[in-house]
C-alpha cells in the first residue's frame, strides 16, 4: 500500500518536475517567477489534443508539435509582454505573467469549452510487479521525464547555450561584458521552458483529463517544488518535485484526499520558515 503510494507519488513528482524545472530556468534568466506556467500547461495539452484527436496524429508526434507550438506562443509573449516590461521589476512582470496565464487558459476555454477531453490512446491494463500496480502511462511518464531531464542537463552543462544561460543566471552584467546577448539567451530559455511545460501538459492530460483548469491545479505544486529546490537550481527543482509528489500521495494516509493540494502550500510555508534557500539552493533568496 505504502509502496504503491510512493510509486504513484514519484510519477506525479516527475510530471511536476518538468514544470518546476521550466519555472526555475525562466526564473534564473529573467529574475521573476513565471505565473503563466498554469496557462502554459493548459495550452500545451490542448495543442497536443488538437493535433492528436481532430487531426489524428499519434500522441508522440502531437507532443512534439505541442512543444513547438507553445514555444512559438512564448516567444511571442516574450516579445510583446515581457520584453517591454523587462526593466520594471519582478512585481510588474509577475502580474503580467498572471494576466498572460488568464489569456492562455481562456483561449482554450473559448475554443474548446469546459468539457473534459481525452487523448486518443488505447487504454492498457496495468502490469502487476511484485504486488505493485504499474500503469503503462506511468512508465511513459518516467521515461519521458528522465529523457527530458537528461537532455536538459546535457544542454546546460555541455553546450554553448547552456554556458551562456548559466552565465546570465550567475551574473547578468558580467555576461553582457563577455558579449553574451541576454535577449537571445532569454528567447532560447523560453523555448526550452515551453518545451518542458508542453510535455508536462501532455503527461498530465494522459493521467487525468484535459480541461481548462488543469494547469491551475498544478501551479502550487510546481511552485512548491521549485521553491523547495531553491528557485534557480534545476536539480533542486527535480528533487523538490519528487518530494512534493510523494508527500501528496502519502498525505492521504493522514488527511482527506480532497486536501492533497494543500501539501504543496504547506511545503512552501515550511521552506519559507525553516530554510529559505531551499534544499539545494545556491543563492540566498533575496529580501
Amino acid at each position, binding site marked *: 500500500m505504502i509502496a504503491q503510494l510512493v510509486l504513484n507519488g514519484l510519477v506525479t513528482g516527475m510530471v511536476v518536475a518538468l514544470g518546476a524545472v521550466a519555472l526555475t530556468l525562466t526564473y534564473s534568466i529573467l529574475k521573476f517567477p513565471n505565473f503563466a506556467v498554469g496557462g502554459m500547461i493548459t495550452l500545451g495539452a490542448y495543442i497536443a489534443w488538437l493535433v492528436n484527436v481532430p487531426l489524428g496524429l499519434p500522441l508522440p508526434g502531437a507532443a512534439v508539435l505541442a512543444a513547438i507550438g507553445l514555444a512559438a506562443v512564448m516567444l511571442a509573449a516574450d516579445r510583446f509582454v515581457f520584453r517591454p516590461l523587462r526593466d520594471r521589476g519582478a512585481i510588474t512582470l509577475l502580474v503580467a505573467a498572471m494576466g498572460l496565464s488568464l489569456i492562455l487558459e481562456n483561449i482554450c476555454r473559448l475554443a474548446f469549452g469546459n468539457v473534459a477531453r481525452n487523448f486518443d490512446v488505447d487504454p492498457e491494463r496495468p502490469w502487476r510487479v511484485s504486488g505493485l500496480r504499474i500503469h503503462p502511462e506511468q512508465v511513459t511518464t518516467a521515461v519521458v521525464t528522465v529523457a527530458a531531464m537528461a537532455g536538459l542537463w546535457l544542454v546546460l552543462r555541455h553546450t554553448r547555450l547552456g554556458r551562456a544561460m548559466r552565465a546570465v543566471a550567475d551574473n547578468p552584467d*558580467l555576461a553582457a*561584458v563577455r558579449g553574451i546577448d541576454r535577449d537571445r539567451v532569454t528567447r532560447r530559455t523560453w523555448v526550452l521552458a515551453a518545451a518542458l511545460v508542453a510535455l508536462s501538459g501532455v503527461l498530465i492530460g494522459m493521467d487525468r483529463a484535459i480541461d481548462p483548469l488543469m494547469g491551475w491545479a498544478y501551479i502550487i505544486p510546481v511552485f512548491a517544488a521549485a521553491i523547495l529546490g531553491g528557485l534557480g537550481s534545476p536539480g533542486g527543482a527535480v528533487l523538490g518535485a519528487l518530494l512534493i509528489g510523494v508527500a501528496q500521495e502519502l498525505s492521504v494516509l493522514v488527511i482527506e484526499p480532497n486536501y492533497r493540494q494543500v501539501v504543496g502550500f504547506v511545503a512552501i510555508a515550511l521552506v519559507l520558515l525553516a530554510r529559505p534557500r531551499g534544499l539545494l539552493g545556491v543563492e540566498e533568496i533575496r529580501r
Partner: protein
Amino acid sequence: MSSDVTSNPLVSDAALEVRGLRLGYGATEIVKGVDIAARRGAVTTIIGPNGSGKSTLIRGLAGLLRPLGGSIWLEGRDLTALPAVRRVAEGVGYVPQEANIFRNLGVAENLRLATEFVPGRQSSARERDEILALFPDLAVRGALAAGRLSGGQRQMLAMACALLARPSILLLDEPSAGLSPRLVAETMQTVREVCDRGVSILMIEQNVAAALPVSDQVVVLVAGRVRLQSAADRLLVDHNLHRLYLGEAA
C-alpha cells in the same frame, strides 16, 4: 552603431577618449560631464573619494549604463551608442569591482566564456599561454567553482578573462581592493606588465601609494567631476594632491 572611423586631431595619442560624459541612475546624475583621455600604451589611474562616481564612470565606459550625455571614443571609433554586449568586440575589456567572475561556473568555464561570445577576438594559443603565464595562481584551475577561489585568485582570473579577448583598453575597478599588501604589490606589477605588452589601461584605485608608481597618468574625480588630470610623476612630488585628495576623502 556607427563604425566610421572619425579622425580626430585631439585623440592622436589617446586610446580612449571621453568627452562631456554624463551618467546616472534614474533621475540622479552621478557623473556630471567628464573629459578624460587615456593615453595609448599607458596606465591611467582614476582616484577619488568614496562615492565620487568612479565605479559609475567605468561602468558607463563598459556600456552597462546608458549615457545621459557626452561621448566615448576608442581608437577613434564612437562607442557611445553601443551596449555592453557589443563593446567587447570593439576592444573594451572590463573587470568589475566585485562579482568579477561567474561564481557558480568552473574556472575553466570562466576562461572559456572569456572569448566564446566575442566574435573576432579569439587569442591564439600562444597568446593564451602568455596571458595565463602572467597568472601562475590559476594553475589550480579546472572544474573548481570560481566562487571558491580566494580573493586574489579571483582578481587574477577576472583579469585573465578580460585579457583573453585581446582588449585595446582594459578597465579595472579597484584591482587591489581587499588584497593583502603583498598581493597588492603583485597586482600592480601585473598591471604594469600587461600595459608594457601593449594594452592601454584605465584603472580605479583607492590605494594611491601602490598605484602611483605604476601609473603614467592620474585623474582625480571628485563628486562626479574631474578635479585634476596630470602626469603621475608630477603628482608624486606634489603635496597639493595629497592634501586635496585626502582632504576630500575625510
